[in-house]
């Protein structure tokens, strides 16, 4: 057998007494796709940082192409062809596609003058290598998430990458975009480029990778050929327990109608949407990108103003197009993109929850800080947010815990209907199961919950009923128990 591209042996790393990685070792071969699976906090990020040369391991050996690397730093790592594509892509939004792709390569050549034609050549060649066509002069800020990711991949390729590490590459992509990405990864493999793929989405992992390495609490708990794992086995290794997918408890047949949407329309987004939500019901709304599901979700909470139609909650009309009035009427909305729409990342966890209740605690005109704080702490506690302190910035939390903070903010307001847009995007398997547990709990308490998602297993395991949207219309209304993932996928796409 030939010398592996990257060989890790007994890598250990501790941060102020906490062991992040404990004696981890595995190999990555040339052109091999390896999946690094694990929940948040399992040590995946630390391992990436060590490979990228950002962090130094306390113990252990790392060899690139058989050569031992004693003092790895970002430069040495990049020179060895190890390229990390971070979750935020680290692109320049104001620069063109071509410049973003070629910038590192040009820096590497150490040129003084900017060679526009050369830069365009590099970009065009790299894009051709992954078989993607993109306008070279478009500013990156105008691209979709999927295209930005492709630009980031091209940038890595332009600097002669041997191993591309992708941190959570699929979290923000739709099913179709994920397919396209997987096709590109196959192409890279055929080209001799190895890929270390860090993902939460299990089905994808099994499809594209030859090898799977599972980390849990800093230890390697499983390693093997991808064909030896199935979704259930992976989940078991990652969480250390069985997380079963099961349908939600049946809805009480006599539950009264809580919320009604009647002939809601918005030109170019959705058309004549009608549905009812009963007390305690969890209703799923699914559809491909462009089906109008996001616009509809936003319209329910007044973030998008519909052209016509009515929303009725508990017999009262909800004013359209005004989030403050929608919230006052008893609707809560948890956005898809927590990071930009839902949280004040640099502010403390406590403040992030308290902000939704400032009005209620300042009736006299002065803020009753103690009561506000106590209420926030209570909700954080109820939702089991794991944090060192309520004063810690939200940014320091894992994805699952961040999602809980957003939920805590809304639940503190006592809403009657909660709209959750992509509730488990970017959270790990364990947290996902817990978020689903919370949803079930809310429904038992009589809340109406609307879950908007394209994660089909999620919909099947949390919802009583699933509405399918296509081209702005609701085309199917399916009781969750009577369908399967494949059938649902078929209805979404056809």
């Amino acid at each position, binding site marked *: 057998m030939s010398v592996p591209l990257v060989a890790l042996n007994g890598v250990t790393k501790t941060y102020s007494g906490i062991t992040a990685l404990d004696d981890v070792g595995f190999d990555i071969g040339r052109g091999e796709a390896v999946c690094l699976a694990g929940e948040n906090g399992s040590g995946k990020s630390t391992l990436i940082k060590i490979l990228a040369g950002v962090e130094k391991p306390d113990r252990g050996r790392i060899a690139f192409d058989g050569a031992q690397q004693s003092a790895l730093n970002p*430069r040495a790592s990049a020179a060895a062809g190890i390229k990390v594509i971070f979750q935020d892509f*680290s692109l320049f939004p104001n*620069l063109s596609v071509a410049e973003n792709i070629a910038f590192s390569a040009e820096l590497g050549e150490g040129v003084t003058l900017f060679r526009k034609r050369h830069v365009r050549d590099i970009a065009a060649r790299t894009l051709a290598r992954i078989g993607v066509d993109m306008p070279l002069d478009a500013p990156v800020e105008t691209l979709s998430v999927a295209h930005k990711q492709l630009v980031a991949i091209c*940038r890595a390729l332009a600097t002669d990458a041997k191993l591309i590490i992708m941190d959570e590459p699929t979290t923000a992509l739709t099913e179709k975009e994920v397919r396209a990405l997987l096709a590109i990864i196959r192409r890279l493999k055929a080209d001799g480029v190895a890929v270390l793929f860090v993902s939460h989405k299990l089905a994808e992992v099994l499809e594209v990778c030859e090898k799977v390495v599972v980390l849990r609490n800093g230890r390697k708990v499983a390693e093997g050929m991808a064909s030896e794992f199935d979704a259930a086995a992976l989940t078991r290794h990652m969480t250390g327990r069985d997380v079963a997918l099961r349908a939600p408890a049946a809805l009480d047949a006599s539950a009264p109608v809580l919320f009604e949407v009647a002939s809601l329309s918005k030109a170019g987004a959705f058309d004549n949407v009608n549905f009812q939500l009963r007390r305690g019901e969890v209703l799923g709304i699914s559809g491909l990108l462009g089906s109008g599901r996001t616009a509809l979700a936003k319209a329910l909470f007044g973030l998008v103003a519909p052209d016509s139609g009515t929303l009725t909650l508990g017999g009262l009309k909800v004013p359209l197009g005004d989030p403050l009035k929608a919230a006052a009427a008893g609707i809560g909305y948890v956005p898809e993109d927590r990071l930009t729409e839902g949280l004040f990342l640099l502010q403390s966890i406590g403040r992030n929850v308290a902000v939704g209740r400032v009005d209620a605690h300042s009736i006299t005109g002065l803020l009753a800080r103690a009561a506000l704080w106590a209420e926030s702490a209570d909700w954080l506690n109820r939702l089991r947010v794991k944090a060192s302190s309520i004063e810690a910035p939200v940014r320091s939390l894992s994805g699952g815990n961040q999602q809980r903070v957003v939920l805590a903010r809304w639940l503190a307001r006592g809403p009657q209907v909660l709209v959750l847009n992509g509730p488990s995007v970017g959270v790990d398997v364990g947290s996902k199961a817990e978020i689903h547990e919370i949803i079930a709990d809310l429904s038992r308490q009589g809340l109406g919950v609307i879950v908007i998602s394209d994660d089909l297993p999620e919909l099947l395991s949390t919802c009583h009923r699933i509405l399918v949207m296509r081209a702005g219309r609701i085309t199917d209304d399916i009781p969750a128990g009577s369908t399967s993932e494949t059938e649902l996928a078929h209805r979404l796409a056809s």
Partner: protein
Amino acid sequence: MQLSSLRIDWTRNETLVPLVIIAFCALAAFSDPSFLSIPTLTDLLRGSIVLGIFAVAAMLVLISGGIDVSFTAVAAFTMYSTAMLLNTLAPDLPWYAAIGIGMAMGAALGSINGILIVGFGLPTLIVTLGTLSIFRGFMLTFIGQKQITTLPPGMREFGRMMMIRGTNPDGSFYSLPWAFAATVGVIVVTWFILHKTMLGRSIFAIGGSLESARRIGINVRATQFFIYVYVGALAGLAGIIHSSMARVANPFDLVGLELSVIAAVVLGGARLTGGHGTLTGTLLGVALIVLVRNSLVVIGVPATWQMVVIGLLILIGTGLPAWQAKRAAARAA
């Protein structure tokens, strides 16, 4: 070139500002037919010399994601100190030596900004607000407060060097000093740096995303340091030109102009959030501000209204594109 890029984009300041300029000129020509003449043009160009250099400097900082408000203090410090230095030590030095000394002094003051921003990682607005006050206070306390009415011969000579000189039919004179060539030179050099060197592209990259720039290995510290030194040198140049043209070095001049300059740059489409800015837009912004300052009287608006008009232009010129962009985004959602 794609067809779409040829279509007029109404949300860009580079389209709006020229329209306002044309409308303004049409109005002025309507009230006073002699407005459209060479003397008006040379007046405007002369008025743009110092403001233009300042604006290019301010734009460079904005592109990198920072903001500099100290450049007027650097300019005032430099012109006053250089005039005093040459008068007492070396009155015979030629004009280009005066410019050289001024730019070196400006660069030195700029490097103080650079050290505070790069070395200590302090926010650019706070650093330059501080140095604005320090440079000015230092000059007034330790160097002098009295106007220098007799400039060193080199600077006097430079102020008198004319590119274009002529007489109007009514017997009055018009002229454009060679200092205008310095502004053109600054524009060309800055354009070259921004668009033809990796240094310039790094400035854009840093303004686009500081963190990404660090991650892909751009030397962020060196680039930022360069920016503040270069801006200091430009401010020094502008200071020397200002006093040469005014035939006097008044230590109370220039300071207070910094917000008008930043306004001109923002009118030209540069964003306070960094990463965006064009020389064309900046120069159009300068042209508009100078036009308002010089010619508002022509269309019958009292001079005291200048500030109100400039304020309205800023609000409309930057607000309209922002509002249109927001509406477009709302329609797309």
